[in-house]
């Protein structure tokens, strides 16, 4: 019994020493910054930066191939950490957040009854989905599934809801949504129009209870901060003078498609 143990241990020791010796010869100097940047990154390997995982981005940042703000998911804290590791002066970075620009859900009428595979991507292939409104959420929650930070959940009325605390603006849901109704917006801009329909008012009124009907009430009340183009109200934050006016718009919107978070 002793002999096999001794033989195998001796072999292991011999090869181990050989490798230790070889590793000394073939040592590759790795940038110590890479390890520290990996520590600072979120570590979700979401791929939003376009690199192969967080380690890939860390290597690119350390080399100078990628900018310090390349990680959309990490936000300001990560950026500050990376900046201090790389010895660069900090700049403030506006926090972004995913916004779902549709309020339809159960309140939107169906064009046909969809009975297929229960994903938005599949339904979207069938004549643009089962909703009468062509700009509306299909409600199977592809965005919920794809979110690596557990920041989107299905709400009560068949619409997904973004958890603004958890959302890191990685953009996964934006590219996943087959109807392109999710976009990344500045988190400080809390008012927004929860509709993307460019259909005429007569059609929108029939298709959805909370669609924008381009009545231009908000345009008048906000003195031009809201603008109606292509049958759809848009909010331009550069023109906002008074937040009170926006609040008034939320109250007066006849279909309640202007929202404050």
């Amino acid at each position: 019994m002793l002999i096999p143990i001794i033989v195998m241990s001796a072999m292991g020791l011999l090869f181990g020493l050989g490798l230790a010796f070889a590793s000394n010869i073939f040592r590759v100097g790795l940038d110590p910054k890479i390890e520290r940047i990996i520590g600072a990154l979120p570590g979700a390997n979401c791929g939003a930066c376009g690199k192969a995982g967080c380690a890939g981005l860390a290597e690119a940042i350390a080399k100078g191939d990628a900018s310090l703000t390349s990680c959309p998911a990490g936000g300001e804290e990560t950026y500050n950490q990376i900046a201090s590791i790389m010895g660069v002066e900090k700049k403030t970075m506006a926090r972004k957040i995913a916004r779902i620009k549709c309020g339809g859900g159960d309140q939107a009428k169906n064009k046909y009854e969809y009975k297929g595979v229960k994903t938005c991507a599949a339904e979207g292939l069938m004549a643009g989905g089962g909703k009468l409104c062509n700009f509306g959420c299909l409600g199977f929650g592809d965005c919920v599934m794809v979110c690596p930070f557990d920041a989107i959940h299905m709400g009560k009325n068949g619409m997904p809801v973004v958890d603004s605390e958890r959302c890191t603006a990685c953009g996964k849901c934006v590219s996943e949504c087959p109807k392109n109704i999710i976009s990344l917006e500045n988190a400080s801009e809390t008012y927004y129009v929860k509709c993307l329909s460019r259909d005429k008012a007569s059609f929108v009124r029939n298709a959805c209870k909370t669609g924008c009907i381009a009545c231009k009430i908000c345009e008048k009340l906000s003195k031009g901060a809201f603008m109606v183009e292509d049958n759809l109200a848009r909010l331009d934050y550069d023109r906002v003078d008074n937040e009170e006016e926006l609040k008034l718009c939320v109250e007066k919107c006849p279909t309640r498609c202007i929202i404050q978070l």
Partner: protein
Amino acid sequence: MELNQLFMIAISVIFINNFILSRFLGLCPFIGVSKKTEPAFYMGLAVTFVMTASSVITWAVYIYLLEPFHIEYLRTLSFILVIASFVQLVEMFIQKTSPALYRAFGIYLALITTNCAVFGVAVLNSEMYLKTTGNPLKGLLFCATQGFFAGVGFTLVLLFMSGIRERLELCDVPGPMKNMPIAFIVAFLMSMAFMGFSGFRF
């Protein structure tokens, strides 16, 4: 006489009993690293080196350690130890000399460790030559030859495959058949072609 035998071994492991297409060993790098010719060639070189070196070392381990102490049942364990050490050595060497190649190999380089083709050469050596040949030095010669030419056969098939797959990139392959499925079909056709060397055996 011996030269004749060595020639037979070479022809046998390159064509007739090719490790990938006849013995179906080492399929992981065969599919994984055969997308481009250059990494495929270097992968072949790495595997050839590991096969030859581990053939020699496992011969020594078998003749001078396992047989005298009558612990042949530890063959698998000790061979894997030898192969793993050699792969580590090759990995270090490549990382030092060519980082680009190191990245092209990715996980497949480390996977040579558990590559059944490399281990298969060592085991087949011990089955075919170590137990039967009376003269241990003759055994060493046969083992090294088989190890080296098994690697050559491996490289050859990898090069064939990568050449075909590079051309497939330019072909209009139907959507569902792209990449992997068509690679498997190519592998099947190549395997059928190589079966021609040995003929049908039922």
